[in-house]
């Protein structure tokens, strides 16, 4: 998790500093996405609502100076926008309770407790990024759907029209390539194994 001072970034937005505003976007994005996907499973709709919400902040920054709790305000504005958009698109909506009901902490917590955000990957991220970048476009897409979106093989098959077996094989090949890249860079299995095992916490 990136620990950045939200207050500072929020001030950056109020002053119209684009770089700080984009940083704010980066810091808040994972939490908003997680929260949004609890409201609707339409990922594109959630992404669009995130952008629309931030665009609104940017346009209205001159009048946002009275906002005392930026995070609470942001979730409320986002939720309202997303629900309206989801209603308009007839998407399936699961309505989690309102902020008032649920409390901001529980929302942020639900995102913070996602284990994956706490696994330390700093030492291998650069290698993985580069190695993924060298895979074929198809394999990159499959990796994204499987490990970022977390789709099952069957869901990926429905989306790509490939068979589950083909998908499995392609991902298997891709993983082999990634691990070969890690090994070439000195990250053997033994070294990685010394890393704290978060799954056991």
């Amino acid at each position, binding site marked *: 998790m990136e620990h950045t001072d939200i207050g500072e970034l929020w001030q950056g937005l109020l002053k119209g500093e684009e770089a700080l505003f*984009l940083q704010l976007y980066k810091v808040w994005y994972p939490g908003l996405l997680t929260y949004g996907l609890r409201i609707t499973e339409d990922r594109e709709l959630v992404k669009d609502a995130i952008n629309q919400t931030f665009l609104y902040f940017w*346009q209205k920054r001159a*009048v946002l100076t*009275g906002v005392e709790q930026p995070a609470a305000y942001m979730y409320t504005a986002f939720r309202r926008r997303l629900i309206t958009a989801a209603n308009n698109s007839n998407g399936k909506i699961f309505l989690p309770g309102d902020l008032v009901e649920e409390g901001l902490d529980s929302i942020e917590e639900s995102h913070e407790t996602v284990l994956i955000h706490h696994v330390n990957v700093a030492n291998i991220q650069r290698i993985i990024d580069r190695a993924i970048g060298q895979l074929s476009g198809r394999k990159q897409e499959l990796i994204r759907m499987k490990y970022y979106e977390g789709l099952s093989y069957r869901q990926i098959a429905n989306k790509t029209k490939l068979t589950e077996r083909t998908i499995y094989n392609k991902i298997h090949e891709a*993983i082999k390539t990634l691990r070969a890249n890690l090994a070439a860079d000195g990250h053997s299995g033994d070294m990685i194994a010394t890393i704290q*095992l978060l799954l*056991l916490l």
Partner: protein
Amino acid sequence: MQSHITVAYLVTDESFVASCLQQDPKAVIYWQQKVAANPDLQPVIAEATQLIAAMYHHGLNKEIAAGQQTLLRMMQETASPLPAITTHRRLSIWQRVAAAVILALCTGAAFFWFTSPREIQYTTVHAGTRQLKNITLPDQSTVWMNAGCTLRYATDFTAHRTIILEEGEAFFEVIHQAEKPFTVQTSNGMRIEDLGTAFSVKSYQALEEESVGVVSGKVAIHSTAEKPTILNAGEGIVANRQTGRLQVGRYATNAADWVKGHIVLNDVSFRELQLVLQNVYDVQIVFDTPSLENCRITTAFYKTNQVSEILDDLKIVYSIAYTKKENVIHLTGNPCQQ
């Protein structure tokens, strides 16, 4: 060593991936138990977990970078004129209560840009929970601020008689000066220009509607691309922030009696009732029936009433139920279906 469980096996295993991404609680428990029973699996599991985490972060970072590009493009596109909002006017149909009603108004997602006085220095005033604040502006006009209201006014007020109502409800009694317009802007971009007046403006960020009611004199309401709408005493306007729908109607001047501690809610959402009760009584209202928040309600009470008295009244009229525990009140029921 259980040789059949390798890193490659784990990383491609549906259940293990779902466990790492915490999509499936059963999978999480399964793998926790598995590793507890087989401690020698730890290194393999650690490596697989880290590999999955790195792939997850790769996807997340790429998506964020793409989102930032999209956002930047949208910011550039809308730096110039914003999309026009269709505004239409019709006589209020949703006012079910005779006594008083509001009228409506518009949203101008955009026109704030044309009027935004960004170089002007402002003084900010806030009325806290349970507070009712009366301030006198440098031009001797007065403002009553209801609990939870925040507004800003130009520090050099004699030159710019501009008020920005950021949140909440405020009542203005304006010393009219023809050559120096007195205007109130809401956070949503609605602009109210005084033409010799006492008027009330309500604009809660959490609510879909904002409204203006005129008690005496008249005001001009400015919105996008429309010529100003003139409201006289006893008239009001309600704007829906999202649809841009504008409704004009009558305004019961006693709705502005909140300055004297008499609160009148005419055909407002439960969401607004929630806000008002939170501001006035410092209680937290929770809708156990989520659909309740958009149901509409009409009621009136004095601040000297107990919150339980108000709710007891509503219980009968709207067939709702409530429980109160210290400062938290839970509401259930569905009056929309009546």
